[in-house]
């Protein structure tokens, strides 16, 4: 009996993975997938990320003076040993995921951005950065960089509203 149950689970699980690619059914399946058992295999497809995302912030002190933009060092640079040991890939990928999700929220909705998970996450990260004085306000920016044959181009993806530093 137990073997039939396990084999049935494998068959149903496999079929569900296939059904996820049926547009309306897929959305419903993903909603119910509490255990995140249905994979989303994309591997940079159909649209590959072409930009590196950089998280920057600047502060405005209580006198109204605005600082320069500072970059949050999310992950480290690539090293030759990263084929075996790459501890900073998570931070790089997390910043990438948060930026991509924030950009899709910007495109698809006009309000509620400030309550979205990527916005709150990025604001939390910049608010926790080390500062000499923790008064006034802070705001963050996501900058996209793309390397071209002759130059590196930059584009501002998003600038947040100023928020109080507490």
């Amino acid at each position: 009996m137990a073997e039939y149950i396990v084999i049935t689970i494998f068959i149903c699980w496999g079929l569900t993975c296939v059904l996820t690619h049926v547009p309306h059914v897929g959305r419903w399946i993903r909603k119910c997938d509490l255990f995140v058992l249905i994979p989303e295999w994309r591997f940079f497809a159909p649209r590959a990320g072409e930009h590196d995302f950089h998280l920057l912030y600047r502060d405005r002190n209580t006198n109204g003076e605005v600082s320069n933009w500072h970059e949050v060092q999310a992950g480290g640079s690539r090293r030759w040993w990263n084929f075996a040991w790459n501890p900073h890939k998570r931070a790089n990928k997390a910043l990438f995921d948060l930026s991509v999700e924030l950009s899709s929220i910007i495109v698809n909705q006009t309000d509620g951005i400030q309550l979205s998970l990527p916005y709150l996450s990025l604001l939390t990260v910049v608010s926790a950065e080390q500062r000499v004085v923790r008064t006034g306000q802070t705001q963050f920016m996501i900058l996209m960089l793309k390397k071209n044959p002759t130059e590196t181009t930059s584009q501002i993806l998003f600038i947040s509203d100023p928020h109080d530093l507490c």
Partner: protein
Amino acid sequence: MTAFGTSVLIAKLAMLPVLVSSLEFLYAPQVLSDHGLMSWAIFRVRAAWMCSGITGKILDRLLSWSFVRPLLCLRIALSLAILLIPWERTMTPLLLLPLALVEWLFVLRSSYGKDGADQMSWITVITLMLMSFVPNTAVQHAGLYFLMFQVCWSYFVAGVAKAMARNWWNGTYLTSIANMKTYGHPGVGKFLMNHRTVAMTLSGGIILWECLFPILLLLPQPIPAAVLVSGILFHLSNAIFMGLNCFFLAFTALYPALMFVVCPELLSRFFSVS
């Protein structure tokens, strides 16, 4: 090699990405802190059941920043135990069930910063756990076929998705990825930018390889064996040039399942334990 022997081999190989990823988190844990990019304090608000009621309280206790290091240590201990335990006692629910629970907690903790390797490791651990509950030949076969399906399906879906994008066919996306700081490699990026034809050929080759992978496995030998070798080289190049180390470990760990089905004699020759 028997189905059971192959399952054990997969279980041991599948612990490598779990172990490496846990050690990487322990080395740079700040990303998991309450102020990090994979913060549980923020991510838990995505669903009511994760931040309120009894489930919210339990999850908050288990996934809070203060409990991350003990949880990672438990994950390391369990994966090491499976890796080092004698061959015949590897497929035990006593180790695989707690590991699956720990894995699930990490799956819940944040979806940001995760990649295909985490997804494949999670699927593998759950599959092995189910296989360990009923250690008979039929279930071992079903589990191995299921893991083979997951590998083939992952390549096929990714290949079809790429095939639908013009910029994948003309090599633009491949060149862009190679020039990214996150996934790129300065030497390869520069080379592809200066050799557009190579980029286009390589990109088209990846699309065809991913789409045709499941079909090529059905052809007579030595084609399936050659396809498996090309798969290992594909993942190895991703590790070297893109820094996707766990991706290599998580996917190649399942190659014994493919070998068990398409070239069992090769599997027996490489791994004489049965």
